[in-house]
């Protein structure tokens, strides 16, 4: 799997040749720096670690400074590992090399985007787990339209099962949306336009996977 780290800019829409309006998201992707290369001998698996976004020197722990110094680069804010990074056999990726969006993606490619969804706070089961609610407002129902209903049987099992879907903190999870199409690629500006929406708020970090 190859990929790149990016930042969500925002959404807009464009028209395709048939006149169909396509909602799309603009993502600033890269340029990333290869901060570590893992191989089978020392780590047990192969992967490429990429760093993205400048981080202030004074906010970087010494241990991380040393890590970035090994790759001869400045401290990075977001570091992500890509297992089995697809690369040319003749031209393998080296430590400290810059990876741009044009290296990884081409126009009309399909990609997956990983991000952290927007936090929604404490929510009921209708919003959190897509429960149907009660469904009837009349026929004796009173102020429990969005209630979860029964959460289990009686004297057996005398307890509520673990993992039962109930109300609670919603959002802020790692979410992956799959098969978004690359509508436009602007490698000179480090921008990529993908179809549809991606998780998270504007300016939040995203992982684009191929």
């Amino acid at each position, binding site marked *: 799997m190859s990929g790149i780290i990016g930042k969500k*800019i*925002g959404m807009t*829409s464009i*028209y395709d*040749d048939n*006149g169909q*309006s396509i909602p799309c998201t*603009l993502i600033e992707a890269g340029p990333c720096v290869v901060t570590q290369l893992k191989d089978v001998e020392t780590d047990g698996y192969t992967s490429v670690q990429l760093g993205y976004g400048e981080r202030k020197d004074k906010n970087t722990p010494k241990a991380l400074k040393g890590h970035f110094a090994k790759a001869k680069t400045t401290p990075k804010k977001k570091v992500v590992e890509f297992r089995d990074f697809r690369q040319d056999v003749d031209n393998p990726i080296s430590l400290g090399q810059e990876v741009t969006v044009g290296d990884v993606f081409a126009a009309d490619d399909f990609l997956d985007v990983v991000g952290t969804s927007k936090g929604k706070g404490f929510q009921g089961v209708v919003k959190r787990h897509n429960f149907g609610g009660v469904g009837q407002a009349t026929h004796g129902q009173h102020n429990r339209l969005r209630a979860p209903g029964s959460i289990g049987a009686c004297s057996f099992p005398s307890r509520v099962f673990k993992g039962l879907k109930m109300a609670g903190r919603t959002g802020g999870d790692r979410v992956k949306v799959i098969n978004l199409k690359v509508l436009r690629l602007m490698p000179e500006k480090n*921008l990529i336009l993908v179809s549809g929406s991606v998780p998270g708020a504007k300016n939040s970090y995203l992982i684009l996977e191929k």
Partner: protein
Amino acid sequence: MSKLIEELEQESKAIKAKHPSFGPGDTINVHYKIKEGNKERVQQFQGTVLQIKNVSTNGETFTVRKISSGIAVERIFPILSPNVDKIELLRRGKVRRAKLYYLRGRKGKSARIKEKL
């Protein structure tokens, strides 16, 4: 809105600039491309502009209303669609509203719009 998105939407401003500027109450003629199999032909739709929605976004649309053999027809066109071939401005109307929904209940004499000179 982000500057980068504004940059991206610059192209759509250029498309919009190709058409004459019009507003609600104006009478326009829209040349709309229609694909039938492999053939493409241009259809015309002439009528009064009822409203313009989602102004200055990429999703901007306008509604045109006409009376076609006694039956009122309304069509919504996305102004940036590549299928909108040409827009002709035929007559400017003098109206005091942005949305002319009041025309929907009217016909004949009461559905007239004064010309803006």
